């Protein structure tokens, strides 16, 4: 019999504010432990939280981008539990009245159809610190640098039906938050992480009992973890057991999930409104001012690229995966005047070089204007596309801009008809046998002559001119 999988995701996006959500400490990643923890972050007696307005701005921006209802009044609540990396003994979060209400995201399925995934809510909260178990024998170190970092927890409806949909949703959201500039999306540093609620059922039946899988911090892991969890649940049910509601941790090394705590062990968090913070009031004027800062969103940008630059859907899709790539492309396209050529190169050689070196496009050694400079030299026949690859590699290695590389290496294309004719005359004279065979009808030998001409010119002869002159001379 058939099984249907039901998946809902809770995504924690770390907001890209400079300071923490309730204190002035820096949120920069990777500092020495406890050097970015103020009195407030340490939960010292007597300290009080003060809301970072930038975090509210970012949450509203996100809400607008998913077409969500924005609460005119939202409330911070305390989630009470004891843990050493939670200095106050409670986490400030939002519970009954989150800032972002119901919204949605559309994802593209493998067959090209569009599926709408509901977003239940998104709320602001502070992150906890980190417990470090490795470096202290028999003891645990606490690093509170992360404590108080602003998070937006984005909760989806249980609308996804397989791991691929979950990944598509997560990728879409990942692109969106980076587009909006509200999250750097760095999954390795934990800026964008995901918990998945997974259950299985017979189609048409009510939802099955779900397990929550924690700590999914890569697209690959989430797919594998969900698939593994689905198999585990089906195995249990098919062998006569019942799935228990629990929290499970995914272990990527073993590709398995294991139980962290059952529902019975779950904390009673004793949520109540935080009396230290006033409700967050959002006015229509504030919403309008945030709306004015919204960038063009990925879908709109993709459609514009297709119409404005006559790009294929594939190219437009690739170029709008991130705002940095799209911006780079547009700068190159406008700089060189040929969008199609720009798209080919950005999606081709540039993308390959970035992947090979692991460099972000924003830090690419060849900036967009320099790149446009290179493509201009193809367009004005200074170099061929093939030579351009050599020039690009040199530019990537820091050997200067396109013109100076071309100049230094003497890569300028030979377009002097006389020079090409002389060269071809020599080649024909030196290869009487091939000339005779070609003239006798062995057309395939044309490529041999082209190759010889290019070799003789060290690749610099203009290929179109070589073709034309060769055709004419070989015709005799």
């Amino acid at each position, binding site marked *: 019999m058939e099984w249907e999988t039901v998946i809902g995701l809770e995504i924690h996006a770390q907001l890209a504010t400079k300071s923490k959500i309730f204190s002035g400490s820096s949120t920069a990643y990777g500092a020495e432990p406890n050097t970015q923890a103020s009195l407030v972050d340490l939960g010292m*007696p*007597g*300290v009080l939280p*003060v809301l970072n307005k930038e975090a509210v701005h970012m949450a509203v921006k996100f809400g607008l981008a998913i077409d969500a209802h924005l609460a005119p009044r939202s409330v911070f609540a305390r989630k009470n539990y004891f843990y*050493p990396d939670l200095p106050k003994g409670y986490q400030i979060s939002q519970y009954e009245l989150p800032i972002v209400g119901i919204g949605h995201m559309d994802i593209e399925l493998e067959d090209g159809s569009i599926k709408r995934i509901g977003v239940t809510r998104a709320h602001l909260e502070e992150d906890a610190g980190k417990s470090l178990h490795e470096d202290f024998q028999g003891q645990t170190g606490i690093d509170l640098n992360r404590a108080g970092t602003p998070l937006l927890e984005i909760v989806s409806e249980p609308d996804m039906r397989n791991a691929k949909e979950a990944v598509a949703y997560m990728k879409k959201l990942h692109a969106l938050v980076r587009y909006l500039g509200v999250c750097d999306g760095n999954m390795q540093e934990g800026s964008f992480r995901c918990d998945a609620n997974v259950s299985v059922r017979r189609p048409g039946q009510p939802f099955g009992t779900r397990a929550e899988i924690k700590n999914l911090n890569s697209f690959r892991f989430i797919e594998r973890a969900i698939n593994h969890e689905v198999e585990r649940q089906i195995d249990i049910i098919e062998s006569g057991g019942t799935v228990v509601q629990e929290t499970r941790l995914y272990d990527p090394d073993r590709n398995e999930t294991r139980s962290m705590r059952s529902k019975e062990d779950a904390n009673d968090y004793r*949520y109540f409104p935080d*009396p*230290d913070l006033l409700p967050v009031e959002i006015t229509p004027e504030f919403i309008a001012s945030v709306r004015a800062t919204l960038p063009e969103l990925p879908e709109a940008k993709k459609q514009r690229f297709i119409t404005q630059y006559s790009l294929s859907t594939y190219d437009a899709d690739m170029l709008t995966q991130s705002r940095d790539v799209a911006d780079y492309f547009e700068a190159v396209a406008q700089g060189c005047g040929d969008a199609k050529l720009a798209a080919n190169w950005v999606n081709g050689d540039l993308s390959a070089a970035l992947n090979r070196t692991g460099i972000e496009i924003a830090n690419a050694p060849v900036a967009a204007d320099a790149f446009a400079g290179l493509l201009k030299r193809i367009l004005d026949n200074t170099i061929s596309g093939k030579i351009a690859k050599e020039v690009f590699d040199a530019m990537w290695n820091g050997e200067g801009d396109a013109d100076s590389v071309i100049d230094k290496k003497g890569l300028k294309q030979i377009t002097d008809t006389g020079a090409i004719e002389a060269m071809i005359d020599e080649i024909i004279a030196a290869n009487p046998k091939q000339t005779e065979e070609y003239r006798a009808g062995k057309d395939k030998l044309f490529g041999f002559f082209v190759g010889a001409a290019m070799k003789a010119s060290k690749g610099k002869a203009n290929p179109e001119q070589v073709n034309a002159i060769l055709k004419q001379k070989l015709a005799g």
Partner: protein
Amino acid sequence: MSDPIHSLSLKKLRDGIHAGNFSVMEATDAYLERIANFNEELNAFITVTRDSAQAQAVEIDNRIRKGELDGAMAGLPYALKDLFCSKDVLTTCGSNMLRNFVSPYDAHVAERLKAAGGVLLGKNNMDEFAMGSSNETSAFGNVRNPWDTDCVPGGSSGGGAATVAARLAPVALGSDTGGSIRQPASFCNITGIKPTYGRISRYGMIAFASSLDQCGPMAPSAEDCAITLNVIAGLDARDSTSVDRPVPDYTATLNDSIDGLKIGLPKEFFAEGLNPQVGAVIERAIKEFEARGAIIKEVTLPNSHLAVPVYYVVAPAECSSNLSRFDGVRFGHRCENPQDLKDLYERSRWEGFGAEVKRRIMIGTYALSAGYYDAYYLKAQKIRRLIQQDFAEAFKDVDVIMGPSAPTTAFKLGAKKDDPIAMYLEDLYTIPVSLAGLPGMTFPIGFAADGLPVGMQLVGNYFEEARMLNIAHQYQLSTDWHTQVPAKFA
């Protein structure tokens, strides 16, 4: 012979310093000497900051001489309840949990007083984490009432009240969550004001119940309170609940007329529960106001009988969460040889907190638990709004409300120690005001038949502190109750 320094009001102290009659050092030493003589008996201070007070006095004398410091508080000694964080000074909150806690920073009010040139004499004893009405829950021993050392001084700001009553400091800062300034001030024959919630920043004041806690001055007179309030009131960006509203000069309107003042007497405050001896003193004082041209009207606060039960849901709920940070991990008491994390938490908290604090954490934890939240916390919040509306209704007819600050005079040490409900009822008349967030004050109006002082509670509308201080000051201009000091401490 001129008056001794400890008998001077804040204003006269300041004038004496500026006229060069005595130095800041002399004033400081005069109080330090009194503390040395009397604190053993009263136990009003947990920490006396003798060395830093003298160092501060030297510095302030210099600055005053150079003309660098000219504020209303410049050179004036003061004491702080031991829940105000004081940089590099022990800040215990009256608890074993913080017996070893030296604060790394100054509370907002401590900062303000320091900047104004005040001299910190020490930190006052208090009920543990401000939970109590007799100062008997302190881990540092009970405080004695200077008017009868077998009696409690009230609480939780009992140390500050006893300090001012015995003139061991000219002013002390207390905190009031359900009556913790007003009840002890009433028991000790001094003036104390709990301003409107949000008027003074709570930053650095160790929280008991965040939605109720408010700092305020305790001093012999309304004028002293006004001078101090001028320094500590106002917006602080570090406390989101502090209110952005101009701070008037509270001393400027002290001499305004109170002719035609409409005083409301809530009938519920004169019903069963009020000790008749106290009631008699209150009624006499009301007549004095009437004789001065005030119009007396009866008002009703129909939900006030629910205030104590509501308070004992809301305040414990908030404290159960506020006190979670005392877990033995980063500061405060940590048990010996914890076996594991759970043991560390449980024993550190078991050993660090006293019985009353544990009782309230338990009540609050229960009230917030799944399945009980709606029935307790949410319902309490709804009634809290009704109580607020009661006051709003009353203030449509009257300018201020008056009544007793406490149902009794100071009671004997130990008399109510084992009866929490009787202790909770001590705050019967102060709690409704706290729940509404309104400003409330108390000022001395005489002595009951048992010879112990009685305070009048005066409640104003939101941010009406200036009017309240004006009314009390006018009363104090023609009476001398507030200048009376127990013979032993004169």
